[in-house]
């Protein structure tokens, strides 16, 4: 047992204390930051703060009140009143305003508006003007009522047993399981890749021959899988830290970040289904490493493991339509597909305990079987320099 932990610790230190690991660790949040930054850049470019003109023939804006301050990333857009359409047109032609609205006399009855622009009015500018109109339509209404009318209802969907609730404000909580699924896949195949490569290298440079005169193949494989799981969990833990820090920093200024919550169901799925699946994949990667003759060949075989893991994302639209459909339920139990399916369903529905339990049992049994097979593959394939291991050899006597 002690030797297994020594192997695990060695594997962990060997990969975690490398530049390659640190680069891999930082690259994911950096890419995410870059991606989010690009989106924010596009959104901010969408905001044109050049004033919008209007010609009011309805009298609604004869004594206008200002629009409420828009929420980020929108910015306030000034409004300029013109007596005549000719004046507004001249201002538009000179570039003083980006567009002007003509509010007809019967606007309050018909809601019809006319807009004149040189370039199409961007969404943020349009929202700003509509907000200005709404504020003036409601200026005689009780402010609390006016706010309710503008913001609409905030419906919270609550499950019958009280285990889950979801409101319009915490839409980000719904995205978290999806993001967690992607993070899980990346961590799983990064650390699994290390494991497979380590096994192939040890075969190639004959370290394996020295190792098995000190530890049993089972101790070796179990230690390696344990170390690999530790590497993956370290990655995930650090990514969570990278995610939580900006959330804590921006929570005060960004409303949806305040509403984020991790449900007990998500935690259960992570511990009972995702973690055993992680071990299962690590076992498969070790088995591939033990059976192939070179790393390149192993990478090709890795595709056979990674493809089923991604399938639930391909079927996401179907699952979104009915997250409790027979298809979604079946995928929830199948090894390799279960972790992502369960994570996606976790964001969409309430998962019955029996489904989490059954899926967990299947993943644990699958992981145990794969570790046993990987041990056999290790024993049979560890000294097959330059030769692949056949299925017959894998299941035969070493």
């Amino acid at each position, binding site marked *: 047992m002690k*030797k297994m932990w*020594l*192997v695990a610790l*060695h594997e962990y230190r*060997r990969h975690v204390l490398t530049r390659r690991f640190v680069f891999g660790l930082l690259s994911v949040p950096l890419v995410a930051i870059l991606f989010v930054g690009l989106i924010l850049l596009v959104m901010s470019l969408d905001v044109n703060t050049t004033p919008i003109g209007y010609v009011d023939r309805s009298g609604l804006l004869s004594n206008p009140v200002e629009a409420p301050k828009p929420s980020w990333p929108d910015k306030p857009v000034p409004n300029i009143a013109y007596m005549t359409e000719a004046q507004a047109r001249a201002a538009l032609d000179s570039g003083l305003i980006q567009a002007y609205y003509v509010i007809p006399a019967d606007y309050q009855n018909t809601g019809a508006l006319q807009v004149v622009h040189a370039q199409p009015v961007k969404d943020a500018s349009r929202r700003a003007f509509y907000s200005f109109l709404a504020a003036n339509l409601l200026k005689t209404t009780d402010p609390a009522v006016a706010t309710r009318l503008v913001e609409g209802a905030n419906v919270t969907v609550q499950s019958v047993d009280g285990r889950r609730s979801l409101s319009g404000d915490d839409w980000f909580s719904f995205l978290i399981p999806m993001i967690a699924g992607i993070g899980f896949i990346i961590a799983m195949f990064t650390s699994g890749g290390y494991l497979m490569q380590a096994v192939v*290298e*040890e075969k190639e*440079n*004959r*370290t*394996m*021959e*020295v*190792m*098995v*005169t*000190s*530890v*049993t193949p089972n101790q070796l494989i179990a230690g390696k899988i344990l170390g690999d799981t530790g590497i993956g969990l370290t990655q995930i833990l650090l990514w969570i830290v990278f995610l939580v820090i900006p959330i804590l920093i921006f929570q005060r200024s960004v409303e949806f970040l305040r509403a984020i919550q991790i449900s007990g169901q998500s935690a259960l799925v992570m511990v009972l289904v995702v973690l055993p699946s992680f071990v299962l994949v690590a076992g498969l990667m070790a088995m591939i490493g033990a059976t192939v003759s070179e790393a390149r060949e192993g990478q090709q075989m890795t595709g056979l493991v990674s493809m089923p893991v991604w399938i639930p994302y391909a079927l996401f639209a179907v699952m979104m339509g009915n997250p409790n459909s027979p298809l979604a339920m079946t995928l929830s139990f199948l090894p390799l597909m279960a972790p992502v399916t369960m994570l996606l369903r976790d964001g969409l529905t309430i998962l019955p305990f029996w489904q989490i339990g059954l899926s967990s049992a299947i993943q644990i049994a699958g992981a145990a079987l794969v570790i046993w097979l990987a041990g056999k593959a290790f024993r049979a394939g*560890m*000294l097959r320099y330059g030769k692949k291991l056949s299925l017959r050899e894998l299941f035969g*006597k*070493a």
Partner: protein
Amino acid sequence: MAAVELTHITKTFGTVKAVDDVSYSVEKGEFFGLLGPNGAGKTTTLRILLDIFKADSGTVQVLGGPLTDAKKDHIGYMPEERGLYQDIPLDRCLAYLGSLKGLDQAEVKRRAQTYLERFDLADSSRKKVKELSKGMQQKAQIIATLLHEPELLIVDEPFSGLDPVNTQMVKDLLREEREKGVTIVLCSHQMNLVEELCDRIVLIDHGKVLLYGELADIRRRFSANAVLVGTPAELPALAGVESVERQNGTVKLNLAKGIEPQSLLQALVAQKIPIERFEVALPTLDEIFIRVVQGEQP
């Protein structure tokens, strides 16, 4: 008690019988040579001994019984193809391999430092293994094999890649281990070194044992009826000598059947021929190896 005992071991890979009914034993404290041409089945025999492979039939006894996990901590194995982690510093590699043999970290460090200094590797201990030269890696591998002070030492071609100075150092080290009572199994192609170090040998070819026993006895069994004579004088024709071969200042006299070396010595003395050297010509292990592999029986 035998430190190693292999009895009727057989191992087949596919259609190839790599080891065919091999039996031999290595006595405790003995320096034992395992010889054979390439592909003879030596390494497979060693791997069976170390429980890396399971034999198809036969029994293996190591240190007084079947090989257990606990016994592995008392065995030092150095494979022919070197096996060290290439991408970590040497001291960390040694610490890891030592800890897997049951040593605590402080003890591993102390012993590793002693060996590193002896092998002139102390300055390179922080270097990654892959940054070391072939000879240095070879020495590092020897350190990893000896670090836990094994009772049974199995070394496969320990001298390959070493210069004469380091070869001598490793020879001295192996002799020291033997003096401490360590049982040593040496697998090597360098017959002169086997001849120099080993008490007994087994010669395997095509998976079968061809020769087994005490080295001196084997050499006697393969000796021809010949003597080596060192003399500054020109030798006259001698009765009972069938042929004469000159070898670097020494003359090899092949004697006729029934002629004893003693009677030839008497004849040389009687003829007042100055003699600087006179010895019975025993074949070298190299010669025996070639003769046996080519099918000759003693």
